[in-house]
């Protein structure tokens, strides 16, 4: 009897140790995207006042760091890549188990999608689309622990029972990751894995040069009210209103198709019916379609800053969210906000892409800049370059010159100066000092300050074949921060 008891104990102990080892392996092997995105959500859930939900448009456009920096409002970006309305609904319901936000901002991109299951979609989609749809759902599902709610969510989103397994038991799909493990995968085992520094948001830093423009629908009747997307938008609003949470519905600026615009009309009809505000950025002109998109669908960081400020204003108007700036309990939010602005600052001061640098300089609040383009530069034939310069000045001068051209954006004084052709700038007082600019010949021009007349800032013997120069200086101190040279080849630019 005693032997039998000891053997039973041995078996139980073995099962425990083996289970622990398999669990450890599952932690190391699981994909870290979801954990990376939501680590701060779980740690700071009790401080979150606003949730942003929706598709990848939300991920790239709604920046909690900016919202906190501008308004002191805490928020979390719950957007999911390829997230259609039913995925968004379940994401929100899961999140509401952990936090009690005062406001939910829900984006309506893909409202027109009218299929129930992500693994089934409809006939217009390929198998690759289905696989991608399933893979993308992992970002929004893996972080939630297995419980009744998660089972209900997976059952509602996925039809195939075999595919459901990979959401309920992630090891089912991730055990194959053994040959792609990186240091972060092991760090997670010690609870030390990497995490999003932007509270779930992701910034993109490219610029879409040719966004498409599509006609508006012929009527404003929307989609008819019967799509699955519309049904779940109503569910989201219902759920929030039932819990006493404010709802703001948005449509974020993108290269919207006619069908997208029809979906916005539907969103408007639903919002009117539920008496909730619709922020249709597409029509507000807050975000510049030609400089603030990373690609045809997603905003870049510059666009994100503008969009978040716009939404922040709408949230602040509702008056339920407190400004937490200065509250020691919210120090973490301040720290992460500072990190984000520092990244933007770095991008404005130095970037390998001339487009990118010009874009961030245009919105910079602590960095002034001097932009010089030599005569004959191919930049004068580049519409995008002209548009970015025009963003500083608002004047048409850049469109009518072959150079040389100079632009001074003095942020501290809030003034912009420009000159082109043989025009000079003489005795202008900017952060650097009192400057003098005089074009002399193709490869030579004078640019100096009264304080240091010996230094010609726009001439360097070794860089004469670079036709574009960007000098940045600190808006307050006038200290020169960077001096970048670019060479144009058509609309391609290489940094020197």
């Amino acid at each position: 009897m005693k032997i039998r008891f000891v053997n039973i104990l041995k078996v139980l102990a073995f099962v425990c140790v083996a289970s622990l080892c398999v669990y450890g392996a599952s932690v190391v092997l699981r994909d870290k995207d979801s954990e990376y995105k939501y680590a701060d959500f779980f740690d700071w859930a009790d401080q979150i006042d606003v949730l942003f939900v929706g598709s990848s448009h939300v991920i790239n456009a709604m920046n909690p760091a900016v919202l906190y920096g501008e308004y002191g409002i805490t928020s979390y970006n719950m957007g999911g890549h390829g997230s259609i309305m039913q995925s968004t609904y379940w994401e929100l319901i899961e999140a509401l188990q952990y936090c009690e936000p005062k406001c939910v901002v829900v984006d309506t991109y893909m409202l027109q999608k009218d299929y129930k299951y992500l693994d089934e979609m409809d006939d217009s989609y390929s198998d690759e689309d289905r696989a991608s749809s399933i893979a993308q759902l992992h970002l929004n599902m893996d972080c939630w622990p297995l419980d009744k709610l998660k089972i209900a969510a997976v059952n509602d989103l996925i039809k195939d029972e075999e595919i459901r397994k990979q959401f309920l038991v992630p090891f089912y799909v991730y055990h194959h990751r053994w040959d792609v493990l990186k240091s972060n995968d092991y760090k997670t085992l010690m609870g030390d894995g990497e995490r999003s520094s932007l509270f779930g948001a992701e910034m993109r830093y490219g610029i879409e040069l040719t966004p498409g423009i599509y006609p508006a629908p012929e009527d404003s009747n929307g989609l008819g009210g019967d799509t699955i997307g519309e049904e779940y938008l109503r569910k989201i609003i219902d759920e929030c209103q039932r819990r006493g949470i404010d709802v703001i519905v948005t449509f974020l600026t993108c290269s919207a198709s006619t069908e997208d615009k029809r979906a916005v009309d539907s969103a408007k009809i639903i919002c009117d019916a539920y008496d909730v505000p619709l922020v249709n950025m597409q029509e507000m002109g807050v975000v510049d379609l030609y400089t603030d998109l990373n690609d045809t669908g997603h905003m870049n960081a510059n666009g994100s800053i503008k969009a978040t400020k716009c939404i922040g204003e709408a949230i602040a108007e509702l008056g339920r969210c407190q400004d937490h700036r200065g509250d020691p309990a919210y120090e973490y939010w301040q720290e992460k906000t500072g990190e984000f602005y520092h990244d933007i600052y770095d991008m404005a001061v130095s970037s390998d892409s001339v487009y990118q640098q010009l874009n961030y300089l245009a919105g910079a609040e602590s960095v002034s800049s001097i932009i010089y383009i030599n005569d004959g530069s191919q930049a004068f034939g580049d519409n995008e370059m002209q548009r970015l310069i025009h963003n500083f000045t608002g004047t048409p001068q850049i469109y009518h010159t072959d150079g040389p051209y100079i632009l001074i954006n003095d942020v501290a004084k809030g003034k912009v100066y420009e000159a082109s052709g043989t025009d000079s700038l003489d005795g202008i007082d900017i952060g650097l000092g009192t400057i003098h600019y005089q074009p002399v010949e193709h490869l030579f021009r004078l640019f100096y300050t009264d304080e240091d007349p010996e230094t010609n800032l726009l001439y360097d013997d070794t860089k004469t074949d670079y036709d574009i120069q960007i000098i940045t200086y600190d808006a307050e101190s006038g200290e020169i921060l960077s001096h970048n040279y670019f060479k144009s080849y058509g609309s391609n630019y290489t940094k020197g």
Partner: protein
Amino acid sequence: MQFVSFAFLLLLPVAALINFIIPRKLRYIWLLVISIAFYLSIDLKAAAVMAGTVVVTYGAALLMEKLMGDAKDDKPKSSLVVLGLSVVILIAAMLIFRSGKIMGAIGISFYMLKSVGYLVDVYRGDLKAEHNFCKLALFVSFFTQVISGPIERAGNMLPQFSYPVTVDFDRMRDGFLQILWGYFLKLVIADRLAIFVNSVYDAPTQVEGTVVAIATVFYSFEIYCDFAGYSAIAIGVSRILGIDVMKNFDSPYMSKSIAEFWRRWHISLSTWLRDYVYIPLGGNRKGTVRKYVNVLIVFAVSGIWHGSALTFLVWGILHAVYQIIGFITMPVRDKAVDLLKIDRGSLSHRTVRTLVTFLLVNLAWIFFRATSLKQAVEVIKKSFEFTPWVFTDGKLFKMGLSQASFNVGIAGIALLIIMDVLAFNGVEIRDRIIKQAIWYRWIIMIAAILAISILGIWGAGYNASSFIYQQF
């Protein structure tokens, strides 16, 4: 429910626990209940065929016993008629139903042979007819063997149902280790190699020659690991339930001749064919020519048993031809060995024989794997195109396996070979492990569990392929 399924992994501990608790004399009923549930979970319609088989087998055996009475040598012809009729019914059912088109027929080739073997044993008087219907039904449908064997003998199984052994801790550990080894063979090696093999055999003419040759070698290991893996799981599970099942593989690729290969490969089928086909045909007792004819017949039957495609028949006959050539050339080969003063016991001589045997078996597997004779010939031709640059230009890793995964496959094969060499030389690894200290055993077992669960081919993106022999 398959061996490779969560449902089975959940069922097994429950089945073992209840089997452990209930009185010994009732265990066969519990095992029958599990077997019925297991089979029904795989294919409901096939259960009707299975039930019919049990009824025919049970009834025919009892009838023969009644007709024969106490007669030992002078059996009445009526009993022979009953045997003949029942065997014809069973074989016909196997041939008709095994395509699965009319009714499901999972494992039909295996349990039919068990039933035929039982009837012949009863007719010969080697075995008494089983009067307990449940025990006979359990023998035919025992869930660990029903899908892919081993093709057990009633003489070994029925007494165990009546007098099951006590399941002690050592037996459980031994069974558990065997199950782990089975899953390792199946999920880590066989299913991994299958990805490569399937990718090549889908379009062999589009692939470099050496890659095709490697795929064929991989197939030799795939089918071995797949079938031996199944058998190891079946034997291990049976052991945990208190039933000893016969060994089905005994380091077959260590064989030094084709005849030896067939003593080590799918032993339960080989011995069945020997006892119920080869010996009744006269075996080697009726002259050399008749012996060769008998060998041809036995291997043709074996080929047909594996499938109705011509490729299986060619595969079987090829093995027969190998053996006949072996018999015919034996004097010449012996003479050459004597003249060259080759030490028959030397490692080099044994290694060469093993390699030659493996290559012959490997060649035959091409027919077994190919979808048609035409494809088999293409594969053989392609395999002789020597393209060694595939080892360095990365083409080897474009057949569905990444370099890391390919390396795991190679490491798995290396481990298998080491284990087989040890087993061939009488070293039983499981016994060695069981004799070690508890921490040592645990490390090995947990490492095996982790290797199977991490490196195994299962889960999303992969459908753990069915055991190859399940189709037969």
